[in-house]
């Protein structure tokens, strides 16, 4: 027992300093710690010191060999250390240097039993694991994922195999639905069988214009996108360009647009038409492959060379949504044929051109639809029909018996108002255009309040009117959707309020009534306020709420 402290004193410099520490200042210990950089050592040392008799007895023989040197050094050092803490330069003698190094080594290398035992005692499981890993990981290598290496080579084969000449590139398969250009000329697909579509056309007839007039028909009820007409603003790109009204002239066998030279016409035919028809043909195929649906009665008598033929340049949007309403388009055609509408209406015509599905192609296209309807019903009819007169002529005629018959259901659109242009919605209902005067008045008022020059030019007004119509179309669809959702048959004020709330014109701060007070004329305001009481109960409550809120404000 008496030996162990003494031996400890000698064994390691720290231990030897241990008793000394009572005397030496803290800086001395720090100095030592600086000399021995391993941060783990104090921990181990302390552990071994507290380890008890067994490690101590083991350790003694080992370090006893070294101790003399260190012991000899330490006394040297100690007196110096005390007055002068910065004694780095002290171990100048080889003995001292060696001793220092050895001490450091002793601290660093855990190769001794004493250390190991101490470590085992104090080790955390993490240390154990680390040691284990050091043992085990000596042979193992970090795993590099093999698929990566494999994938790397095919990734850029062109770089690695520059010599390989791979001929013409194979046509890349198209992954999307090739609705628009399925049967392009450079397509690898075989051309669709046209003979079945145009059975009566001899081979030498120029096909370019013939098959260009085919249109697929889709039942209106089948297309879910056409319910309520969708949102206009989604299709806005279509309305971007205002096409002036186009006129047709009869040119030989063609009725064509003015201002188009032949080259352009031919191009238009080749590009637009082909796309359209193939597209439609594809549609027809998909829907059960009844080619006769697509065939047009117009060209039934193509063998007569003098028969005039329609040539239309179709804008792309028709391809996008080939919807058809069999009875649509009479109005439009009439508008083209007989009357040039007066000033206010002229604007509207142009707008309508842009609005839903392009009047002017629609007109012809509807005429075809109307004729091919007959064909659907029975071919016998069609044959007789073709024989009796040129189908072309018929479609141009404004007062054909069929047309009169089909228009009969509608209340005479033109009889009442002469000047007002009537439009058609997607559903075939006709509606008047919004009066431009009101638009102008509103716009002028708002522009004035904006501090702008309150002059609104004619084409601006025209644009505003067209925007107005778009707006009403949009809000009509929205309101219908809301009313439908509520299971109502009528559009009610709640729907409008809901729409306004949704578009955030109504917030918690603004009610419909406050807005109305700001904007609407007083008569309307009064009506808005006074009407509610005789309403239905649910509606009344809604209205009343609004009014109360308003009164609070």
């Amino acid at each position, binding site marked *: 027992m008496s030996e162990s402290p003494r031996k400890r004193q000698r064994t390691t410099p720290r231990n030897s300093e241990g008793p000394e520490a009572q005397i030496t200042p803290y800086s001395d210990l720090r100095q030592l710690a600086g000399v021995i950089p391993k941060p783990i050592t104090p921990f181990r040392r302390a552990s071994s010191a507290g380890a008890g008799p067994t490690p101590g007895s083991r350790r003694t023989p080992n370090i006893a060999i070294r101790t003399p040197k260190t012991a000899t050094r330490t006394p040297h050092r100690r007196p110096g250390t005390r007055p002068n803490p910065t004694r780095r330069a002290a171990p100048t003698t080889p003995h001292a240097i060696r001793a220092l190094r050895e001490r450091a080594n002793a601290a660093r290398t855990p190769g001794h039993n004493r250390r190991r035992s101490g470590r085992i005692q104090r080790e955390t499981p993490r240390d154990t694991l680390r040691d284990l890993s050091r043992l085990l990981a000596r042979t193992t290598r970090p795993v590099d994922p093999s698929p990566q290496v494999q994938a790397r080579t095919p990734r850029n084969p062109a770089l690695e195999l520059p010599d390989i000449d791979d001929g013409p590139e194979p046509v890349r398969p198209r992954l999307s639905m090739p609705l628009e250009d399925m049967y392009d000329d450079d397509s690898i697909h075989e051309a669709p069988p046209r003979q079945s579509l145009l059975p009566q056309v001899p081979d030498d007839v120029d096909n370019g214009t013939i098959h260009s007039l085919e249109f697929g028909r889709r039942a209106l009820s089948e297309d879910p996108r056409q319910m309520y007409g969708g949102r206009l603003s989604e299709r806005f790109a279509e309305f971007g360009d205002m096409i002036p009204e186009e006129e047709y002239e009869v040119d030989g066998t063609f009725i064509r647009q003015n201002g188009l030279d032949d080259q352009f016409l031919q191009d238009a035919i080749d590009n637009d038409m082909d796309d359209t028809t193939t597209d439609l043909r594809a549609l027809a195929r998909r829907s059960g492959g009844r080619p006769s649906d697509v065939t047009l009665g117009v060209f039934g008598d193509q063998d007569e060379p003098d028969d005039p033929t329609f040539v239309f340049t179709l804008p792309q949007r028709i391809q996008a949504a080939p919807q058809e309403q069999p009875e649509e388009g009479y109005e439009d055609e009439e508008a083209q044929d007989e009357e040039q509408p007066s000033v206010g209406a002229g604007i509207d015509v142009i707008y309508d051109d842009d609005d839903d599905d392009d009047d002017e192609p629609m007109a012809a296209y509807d005429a075809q639809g109307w004729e091919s309807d007959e064909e659907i019903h029975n071919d016998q009819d069609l044959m007789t029909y073709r024989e009796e007169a040129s189908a072309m002529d018929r479609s141009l005629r404004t007062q054909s018996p069929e047309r009169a018959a089909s228009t009969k259901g509608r209340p005479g659109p033109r009889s009442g108002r002469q000047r007002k242009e009537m439009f058609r919605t997607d559903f075939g209902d006709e509606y008047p255009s919004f009066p431009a005067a009101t638009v102008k008045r509103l716009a002028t008022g708002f*522009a004035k309040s*904006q501090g702008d020059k309150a002059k609104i030019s004619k084409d601006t007004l025209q644009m*505003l009117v067209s925007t107005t119509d778009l707006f009403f179309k949009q809000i009509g669809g929205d*309101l*219908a959707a809301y009313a439908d959702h509520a299971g109502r048959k009528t559009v009610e004020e709640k729907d409008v309020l809901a729409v306004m709330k949704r578009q955030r014109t109504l917030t918690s701060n603004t009610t*419909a009534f406050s807005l109305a007070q700001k904007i*609407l*004329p007083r008569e309307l305001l009064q009506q808005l306020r006074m009407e509610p009481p005789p309403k239905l109960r649910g509606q009344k409550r809604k209205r009343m709420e609004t009014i109360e809120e308003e009164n609070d404000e």
Partner: protein
Amino acid sequence: MAQTLYPRGTVKKIVKAHARKPLSRNADILIFLNYALFMQDLIKEASIASKQAGERGISAKSVKKVREGCLRKFMG
């Protein structure tokens, strides 16, 4: 505001045609209110756009430029 009413019947007809549903009695006033708000917004945006383009007054071009955004804003 010494102006006449807006053509109520026309608005009703238009919306009715588009919605394919009849309108209740006062819905058209609210619709017109909405339309007036829309017009206000449109004029405001258009005047901003035309000022940015350095035009005098409101041009058709600026209206055309902003109307899509305005319509989108007034989607229900």
